[in-house]
């Protein structure tokens, strides 16, 4: 999938934005393998370019929430006490709210664009990682080897880089794989509603929204981008599930 995102633009047979009104809604054929959309753009080319757009946005969201969530979670665990309690209560509440509707609120406040949708999802998704990294840190800090490290006067920074992060890696990587599909569904959902990527950007959700008016005349315009979202999200779910069965911690998936 990542490979597809990288090489997609190079193997695409047509310009994803080129409008060709003589070839509107052409059925899948040898020239246009997946047909053309209502403005005569090649669906296969758009899907290939869209892979980069969709995956890049998803990775941006996940990387950012992973980074800031972990900083907050590890900080919270080290500080402890009232601040820790307060931060985690906020994370609990925030974690529960329907992410889609929260992101919709942020996107509405920020204005409709793909960047706004990305930012909106970052705002909605951080608690998962704050909660998780805090849990892991507290667990590690309670271990005996940390007590002996304390006796030796090991610095906090060293504890984070040498004890917490290596131990947290496995669990975080599983959560990341499972969240990729959820974030991807959310981004394409927001784009479908019209608050994310804007037509003619070749984002998969936006393509489906664009193709909706032609579903009776050109089923391929809606079917293929959706199929791509489904296959990609499913692949990440399967990878995540395989990783989890290897390590089996108790994780929660949000949708």
């Amino acid at each position, binding site marked *: 999938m990542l490979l597809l995102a990288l090489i997609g633009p190079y193997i695409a047979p047509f310009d994803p934005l080129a409008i060709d009104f003589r070839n509107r809604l052409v059925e899948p054929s040898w020239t246009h393998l997946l047909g053309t959309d209502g403005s005569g753009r090649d669906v296969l080319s758009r899907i290939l370019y869209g892979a980069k757009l969709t995956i890049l946005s998803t990775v941006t969201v996940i990387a950012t929430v992973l980074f800031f969530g972990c900083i907050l979670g590890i900080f919270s665990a080290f500080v402890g006490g009232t601040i820790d309690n307060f931060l985690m*209560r*906020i994370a609990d*509440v*925030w974690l*529960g*709210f*329907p*992410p*889609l*509707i*929260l992101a*919709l*609120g*942020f*996107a*509405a*406040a*920020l*204005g*409709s664009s793909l960047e706004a949708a990305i930012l909106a999802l970052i705002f909605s998704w951080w608690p998962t990682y704050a909660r998780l990294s805090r849990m892991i840190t507290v667990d590690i800090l309670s271990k005996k080897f940390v007590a002996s490290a304390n006796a030796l006067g090991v610095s906090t920074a060293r504890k984070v880089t040498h004890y917490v992060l290596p131990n947290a890696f496995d669990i975080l990587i599983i959560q990341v794989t499972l969240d990729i*599909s959820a974030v991807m*569904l959310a981004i*394409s*959902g927001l784009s*479908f*509603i*019209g*608050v994310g990527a804007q037509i003619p950007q070749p984002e998969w*959700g936006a393509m*489906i929204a664009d193709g*909706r008016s032609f*579903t*009776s005349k050109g*089923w391929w315009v*809606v*079917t293929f981008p*959706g199929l791509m*979202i*489904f*296959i*990609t*999200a*499913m*692949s*990440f*779910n*399967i990878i995540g*599930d395989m990783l989890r069965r290897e390590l089996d911690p108790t994780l929660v*998936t*949000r*949708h």
Partner: protein
Amino acid sequence: MRYVLERIAFSLFALFILIFITFLLSHVVPGDPAIAAAGPNAGAEKIQLIRERMGLDQPFHVQFLTYGSKVLAGDFGTSWFTHQPIADDIMRELPPSLELVVLAMLINLVISFPVGLIAARYHGSSFDNGVRVVAIAGAGLPIFWTAILLQQKVAADWQLFPVAGRLSFAYRDFEGATGFYLFDSLAQARLDVFLDLIMHMFLPALALSLLFTAVGVRITRTSMISEFRKDYVVMARAKGASEARIMFRHVFRNGATPSLTVFGMQFGWMLGATVLVEEIFGRPGIGRYAVKAVTQSDIHAVVGVVLVVGLVFVISNMAIDLILFAINPRKARED
């Protein structure tokens, strides 16, 4: 009692956070509302005047308190595109959405519990593996895509269900006291209207529920598997209890508890996900209202929806937790 009070306190805290988030959304994130309200040609003096009238020159916490007390009094402001009080709009749009979510939830439960239980009972069998794979795959379904495909195939091509709307044209004059037409039609003994409503709701509810059902099956299966492994099941088997009795009387009752918490959360998430299906099926509801509000950049209407969905979410979670506590005080506290 202590647990109940703690749970209520947590919900109030959640409500506070919710109001704070919506305050940020409507007052802080969009930039200076006074400049927006004054229009493009306003001078600095006019902007200052509007800023004072809107209370934007007040300190941050004063603005927040003003906003919070307004919201708690049920005043969400006026919508730009319907020119109605937002609270009235939402009260009108909420019942159809709630009805839809309840039906979607029923579909979810009717599938998740039996499938999860049976898969757990025959853990490791080919049926169980099949269920696991389908559940993982299903969790990758884009709701809006399934909705369009179902509408196109089942409704438009096969004509098994109506394509769009809440009621058929013949019943366009139907009105109910509560706005919950399923309830109203039964109260008026209009079975024809009731069936028509269900026919219109079925496909959107199915599209809405599939993704959540996939997650629901997985959660139920996992919690039932761990329940089957417990000592009391071995004990019951040793005492010669029938397999059916073990499954329904013991495992199901205990294993259902943790999944109920998840289903409680899913209720709120589904209500949020109505933004993806209501527009497609041309149904009235807060999801469609929110989408319209977003496209009209009516930030206060969007924030109103966020508030109400959040409120439903807080209430449904608290209700589930309190019900579980009432059924089994000891177990609820452990979870």
